[in-house]
């Protein structure tokens, strides 16, 4: 940090000239503002990240009475990518989750936001009601949905028994369909948020643009197609990126409901990393989970990069 030279935006300094006392004072001030935050960020965010990358090339092996760290190169990476079926299953689950979100959550959010934009009766109440689940924590959502789906005293089985379908009652989170129910829980949780984002964009469509479409004799549907969708397209790109990143990092919800079970059917990459890091039977080895973490970070970064390239460039062509 010491070698950084802060200068005032309006002042230039020719090379070699010793800094004036004023400039030196200003450098000191700038450092004073910057240093505390950078120190905090560096210690607790940047360092753990670089350490994750570093550790992913090592293994902790028993040696004599204790243990020693041994360089294994890309060994953990090849093991994760070629031998670890749970890791692959977790990557598939996380991707399915993102696909579900794009296919279900975003269209749903668009429909809900649109009905608020055309001011259906009671829209203020609807807006609050639909947004409300967003305020709850993933842990709370997890526990709540566990209660909804539990065999005895759950809301779902209770409803089934009430309408005479008690025979269908089941332990839903223990079934092969568990992942689907977790999808439904995240949809319940997050659609309100996507709806609010969409509504913010829709409110920016000038009323006269909507009116003009009506005067031109366009039907409501054509109005949607020709006026609203072009406005929504950049938003759609943003929403896809947001849902993608959100579903790549799912942890809490799965951890408090199924912990990846039954038999890894609901495992996400992050639950598997934490499981292997802290709760794995056997020796403590942070190298392997670190390698999985690095792989996943690269997948996320690549995904976001590709998505923003594809989605944004498509905009340029179609406009």
């Amino acid at each position: 940090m010491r070698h950084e030279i802060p200068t005032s935006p309006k002042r230039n300094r020719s090379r070699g000239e010793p800094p004036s006392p004023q400039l030196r004072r200003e450098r000191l001030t700038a450092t004073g503002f910057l240093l505390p935050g950078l120190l905090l960020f560096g210690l607790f965010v940047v360092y753990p990240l670089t350490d994750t990358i570093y550790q992913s090339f090592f293994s902790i092996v028993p040696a004599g009475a204790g243990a020693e760290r041994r360089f294994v190169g890309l060994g953990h990476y090849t093991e994760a990518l070629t031998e670890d079926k749970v890791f692959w299953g977790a990557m598939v689950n996380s991707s399915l989750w993102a696909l579900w979100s794009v296919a279900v959550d975003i269209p749903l959010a668009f429909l809900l936001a649109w009905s608020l934009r055309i001011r259906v009766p009671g829209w203020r109440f609807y807006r609050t009601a639909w947004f409300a689940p967003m305020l709850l924590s993933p842990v709370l959502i997890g526990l709540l949905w566990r209660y909804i789906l539990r065999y005895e005293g759950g809301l779902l089985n209770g409803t089934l028994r009430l309408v005479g379908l008690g025979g269908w009652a089941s332990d839903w989170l223990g079934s092969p369909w568990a992942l689907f129910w977790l999808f439904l829980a995240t949809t319940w949780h997050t659609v309100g948020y996507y709806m609010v984002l969409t509504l913010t964009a829709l409110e920016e469509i000038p009323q006269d643009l909507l009116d003009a479409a009506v005067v031109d004799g366009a039907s409501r549907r054509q109005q949607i197609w020709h006026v609203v969708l072009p406005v929504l397209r950049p938003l759609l790109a943003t929403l896809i990126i947001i849902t993608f990143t959100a579903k790549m990092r799912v942890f809490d919800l799965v951890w408090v409901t199924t912990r990846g079970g039954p038999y890894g059917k609901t495992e996400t990459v992050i639950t598997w990393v934490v499981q292997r890091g802290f709760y794995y039977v056997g020796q403590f080895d942070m190298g392997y989970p670190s390698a999985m973490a690095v792989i996943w970070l690269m997948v996320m970064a690549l995904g976001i990069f590709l998505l923003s390239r594809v989605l944004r460039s498509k905009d340029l062509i179609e406009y």
Partner: protein
Amino acid sequence: MRLGRIFLHMFLIAYTIYALGPLVWLALSSLKPTFQIIADPFGLPAVLSFKNYQTLSVSRFWVYYRNSILISAGGLLGILIFATTTAYALSRFRFPGREWIRSAIFAAILLPPALVVLPLFLQMQTYGLVNSQLGLMLVYAAFAMPVSVYILRDFIAHIPWELGDAARVDGANEWQVFLRIILPISRPAITSVLLLQFVHFWNEFVLALVLIRSDNLRTLPVGLTLLNTEYTMNYGAMSAALVLSAAPMLLIFSIFSERFIRGMSVGALKG
């Protein structure tokens, strides 16, 4: 056309039942004894009883609750100190590596804390900050930096330069300009950031799970999962616990709903 409208309304009502049903059911369950929750999931409480809430008063629930308030407050204080100064430095001063630092901070928005929690845990151990509430506050503030600095820097960069100049002419130094002029003007952005991060802190799970080891220091999200094991069969008490832990969020939302929604969208849409 008419038919379409009717379908739309039916759909909206159905979605509202989906969105609110679980919450209403939870609130009702918290007022019913467990046997009635099982026998009659939709019924109103036979007698209005707060017995479930009384059960919680003798449990560790309120210890977790107090810890969550304490740690959230500490984290927010950390943001006030660290994020505002960093945001100001990034918008006011020019220095080599500024763009680099800025991109590094903003890129970290995408970093899930759970992926780096292992080395973080070991590092905290060497500082003696494992199982420390101060440690957790610092970590929360650190992981809140990217989004907070992003929103604050954006706001501060749009404050006209001249506003500080009058004070500078009067001999005020940069810190005085920052404290007396920049911070008061930035209050809307600061409020949005604090609201947003309060929700994150109150709800945060994985860092609290790993970094706090003793039970009397734990926060609410982790505490809820422990209570859930303890009260496995007491559905009523757990419903009450969930209702109470959601209460602060619902309260804040009802007071600040507009600002809240705006705060949640600003970070996302500018991206």
